[in-house]
């Protein structure tokens, strides 16, 4: 579904990604873990064009988003094409990024109506099903300002799902939440995984990575250090740096 090959990205003198490659298959749930500043979030943001790569190749479901000729500059597909490809990926942010001037329902139906041109009558029933799924039917007409962090994040998940993405990207979805609120968000994500949604999750929740992810990718200093099935990785980390990281976390 996603093929990333040799992604390079630098911010000024700081080389954030030093040739990161990833192949993701349909239905896979991948957890990306690693210390802060290791490039996990940047990698995720490069996949859906929130950041542009300096070199490398990104292919989304067989279609080229960006590619680099040997020795040449990195080229992106035309803007409209980039937008179309990126729409296959839904994204959930650490800080939710809900639209504060819209109610929960309006947040969910905004993109289907504005981007896909769907009629209100078509999308509202679907939005209500999504709200039911994330357990927030009662908050349908509330503004985000009245919700708890966990509720906001669940609305954000419903909002992303309303665009019917093939892949969901999660960028530290529980890092801004109080510990007692992370559970409800993780539960929603677990349900999504059980429905075989393809998911790439940058997270510090080791329990979630262990139980839900099929594969774990450990990143450090802009490179992938270790990449193995989740059970394997947690039972028996190979690389000394992943071992040190896990010892610190658990």
């Amino acid at each position: 579904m996603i093929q990333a090959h040799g992604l390079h990205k630098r911010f000024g003198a700081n080389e954030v990604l030093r040739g990161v490659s990833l192949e993701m298959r349909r239905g896979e749930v991948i957890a990306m873990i690693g210390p802060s500043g290791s490039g996990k979030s940047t990698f995720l943001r490069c996949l859906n064009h929130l950041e542009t790569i300096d070199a490398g190749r990104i292919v989304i479901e067989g279609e080229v988003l960006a590619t680099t000729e040997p020795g040449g500059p990195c080229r992106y597909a035309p803007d409209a094409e980039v937008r179309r490809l990126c729409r296959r990926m839904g994204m959930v942010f650490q800080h939710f990024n809900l639209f504060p001037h819209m109610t929960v329902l309006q947040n969910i139906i905004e993109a289907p109506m504005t981007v896909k041109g769907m009629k209100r009558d078509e999308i509202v029933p679907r939005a209500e099903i999504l709200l039911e799924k994330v357990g927030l039917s009662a908050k349908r007409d509330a503004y985000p300002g009245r919700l708890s962090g966990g509720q906001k994040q669940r609305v954000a998940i419903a909002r992303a799902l309303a665009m019917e993405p093939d892949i969901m990207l999660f960028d530290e979805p529980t890092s801004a939440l109080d510990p007692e609120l992370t559970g409800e968000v993780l539960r929603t994500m677990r349900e999504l995984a059980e429905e075989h949604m393809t998911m790439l999750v940058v997270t510090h929740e080791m329990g979630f990575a262990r139980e839900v992810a099929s594969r774990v990718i450990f990143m450090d200093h802009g490179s992938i250090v270790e990449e193995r099935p989740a059970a394997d990785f947690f039972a028996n980390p190979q690389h000394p740096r992943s071992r040190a990281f896990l010892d610190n976390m658990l």
Partner: protein
Amino acid sequence: MDYILKILPQLIEGTGVTLQVFLITIVLAVPLGLALALARISRWRVLSVAVNGYIWLMRGTPLMLQMLFIYFALPFVPVIGIRLPDFPAAILAFVLNYAAYFAEIFRAGIQSIDRGQYEGAKVLGLSYPQTMRRIVLPQMIRRILPPVSNETITLVKDTSLIYVLAMNDLLRAARGIVQRDFTTSPFVVSACFYLAMTLVLTWGFQYLEKRYAVADE
């Protein structure tokens, strides 16, 4: 009291002129200011620098000077030189000047919107114009209401500057009566007129602020 009733028609006539200048300026300067603000933050550098220069020019010289220039000097400027009658000349000066102030208010408002809002919109597939129209501008409006209200109230009173082009606005009408009748009461009456106008505006903006505050925590 009888005296006030007697001078009222002239003052009301002046108020008409004042309100015309005010309303036409608002209707034209707000959209122009928004366009300037968007140009100012545009990634196209030439445009941004040009608008920046324009704003500096308009905010850096007196409105009265701009009005005098448009009325008296513009006809002699090569190429764009046109001779405007007094009312259009005054309106043009007001619109060009106020658009510059509105542009800066709008720009500040747009730039106060969190980056996350753009990213949230982008990952949902909204284009830049859609993001502006649906996400950024509606949130901006709420934040800029207080400075816009300030600017609007200032405009009500600035309209009195059109006396330099010999137009009979509220203040000039009052002054005419004062000079004719040797009494200062027309000033007091005209002050009441201005206060009434700004009171209506104040209420209007308070209502808008309340309406836009529904989304608040």
